[in-house]
């Protein structure tokens, strides 16, 4: 471990490895960008038959218009430009596309969470459903559900549904599973001792649910919600691919891949990363707030 004296400070010890790794990754990214775009730039120079030096080539690789791998600062500039360069509702603005995807994600997330919780409640209260439905819920996850996305779009389109709802249904279908599984686990997590105590008070099954099962399921609920919200985002993005949707992060990815706009693809990826971490952060904040209200320390 380098420099024992600096590592005395806790924040250095905590963030130094992360910062080093990130810096190394960015450095690798730059080297890779130069290496991958080199032949592209060399071809361009040789076509124009101008004399060039190595430095010209390197600066060319880092500012190419359609590079194989754009340099980090190009991506950052593209993100900055498409976020602040246009009004937020212009179709070239990344904010607009992120909002389109975000609404589909949130609607799908809410639908999926409700479906998952209702399924879990039904499964916990009915042995028949537990035995007959649970194996199929698990099996449904081994099926690449995203493969269903185009059909969903076609079927719902034939029924006259376009735009937001089909995308949200796909996200909901993707994200109900972790919630259902987590909630079944959580609702059955109270200890037998506590359940027996509730029985001695002759609690009805509804009282048992609200006073014992639900509170003990809350930590499980949030753990699954955190997983589910990213899955929901993935679902929304992928659902935008086969539809040829005009707006949304998925549409930006598709358009970028059709027209060879690599920088646009990377900017859309950054936008999705920001969305994902923001959504996880919000779920984490709500979780902390709820935990405090419920008396956790």
């Amino acid at each position, binding site marked *: 471990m380098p420099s024992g004296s600096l590592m005395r400070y806790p924040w250095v010890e905590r963030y130094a490895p992360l910062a*080093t790794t990130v810096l190394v990754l960015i450095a690798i990214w730059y080297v890779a960008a130069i290496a991958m775009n080199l032949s592209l730039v060399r071809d361009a120079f040789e076509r124009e038959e101008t004399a060039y030096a190595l430095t010209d080539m390197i600066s060319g690789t880092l500012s190419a218009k359609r590079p194989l791998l754009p340099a980090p600062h190009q991506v950052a500039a593209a993100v900055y430009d498409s976020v602040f360069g246009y009004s937020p509702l212009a179709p070239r603005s990344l904010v607009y596309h992120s909002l389109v995807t975000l609404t589909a994600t949130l609607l799908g997330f809410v639908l999926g969470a409700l479906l998952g919780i209702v399924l879990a409640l039904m499964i916990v209260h009915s*042995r028949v459903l537990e035995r*007959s439905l649970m194996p199929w819920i698990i099996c449904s996850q081994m099926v690449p559900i995203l493969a269903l996305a*185009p059909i969903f779009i*076609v*079927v719902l389109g034939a029924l006259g549904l376009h735009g937001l709802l089909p995308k949200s249904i796909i996200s909901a279908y993707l994200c109900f599973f972790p919630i259902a599984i987590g909630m079944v686990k959580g609702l059955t997590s109270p200890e037998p001792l506590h359940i027996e105590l509730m029985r001695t008070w002759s609690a009805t099954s509804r009282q048992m649910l609200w006073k014992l099962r639900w509170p003990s399921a809350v930590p499980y609920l949030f753990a699954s919600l955190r997983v589910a919200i990213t899955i929901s985002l993935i679902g929304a993005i992928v659902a935008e691919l086969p539809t040829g949707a005009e707006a949304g992060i998925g549409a930006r990815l598709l358009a970028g891949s059709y027209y*060879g706009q690599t920088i646009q*693809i990377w900017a*859309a990826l950054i936008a999705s990363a920001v969305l994902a971490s923001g959504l996880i952060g919000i779920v984490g904040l709500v979780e902390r707030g709820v935990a405090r209200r419920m008396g956790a320390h």
Partner: protein
Amino acid sequence: MDPRKLRLGFLLAAGAIVIALLLSSGPRAPSLMSPPVIWQATAGAGLLFLCAAWLADARSMTFGLAGTALAGGATLAMLRNPAIAGSAGAGFWMLVVAAWLASALCVVNLAALRPVRIDRQNILNILVPLLFAAAVFYLWEVGVRGFGVPPVLLPSPSAAAIKFASSLPMLGADFVQTFVRGVLIGYAIGCGAGLLVAILAHRYAFLGRGLLPLGNFFSALPLVGIAPIMVMWFGFDWPSKAAVVALVTFFPMLVNALTGLSASGHIERDLMRSYAANHSQSLSKLYLPAAMPFIFNALKINATLALIGAIVAEFFGTPTQGIGFRISTEAGRMAIDMVWAEIALAAVAGMGFYGLVALAERAITFWHPSYRT
């Protein structure tokens, strides 16, 4: 289950069959029950339901299931008649209701059974979901064909199955392209690299502390979005799919394996040190075995992720082969039965892959408490 409720349920089912028979003896009788076999099967189903209602205990399940099979078979045979398919009358639907009611009663009853012997319990655990699925497929088939739902919206399962059977060579080629080339190769690369990096990060703590937050961050990202870039780099054929799969599977493996490698207890580590074991020895004897449950967890998560990644990558460009390619083109041509055949293929491949990983897990981590019941 309460025998009175059971008796009532089977009586209702028998009543529905009687109504169906009465309705079919009207002017449209020859069209509904034209071959006498169907009439006999229906009447037999009614009798079996009556027997089940009379017994109203565990034995009635056999009669109920036999009756359900007869009634269900009768409705399916009726659907071969073009006069019924698409415009089925009340008599037909009464029969369907009877079959559904009896099968629901049987499933509920079987699920409520608590046999003492463990092997019977295992059989039951498989039988109940299978019966449930059979009932769902039956209702799907009968509903789609009885109401005449246009096949563009939702094909009947039998149509998809026929399509599946008749286009086996094409499905086989798609399977090889997507699964054998894209998924398996990418899965091996991604999981292998994830495990290697995890071992390195476990050896050098500085690297580990830098990589763990990054790994957590990246495994929460919608990484399938990288697919268009990979298609641009590696071309339309399988290497780009394998690259997407490798990337998607890398981070879950890294995070899980890193957690698993530090899961061994202090006592075990001290023991290794007291044996003067060097790092590779403790790695192979202690750290890796202790990490196996976590590694298999990642392998199972990745089994699903890999298939999804490969199929999504195919939406961005493929040679004219592959499950994802076929799904998107056939959906565009409104050949929905072919799409469902491909989905069935993907489902079977996904479940088979997952099942194999789960079997390997059982064989390798047999010592884990969750398998020693």
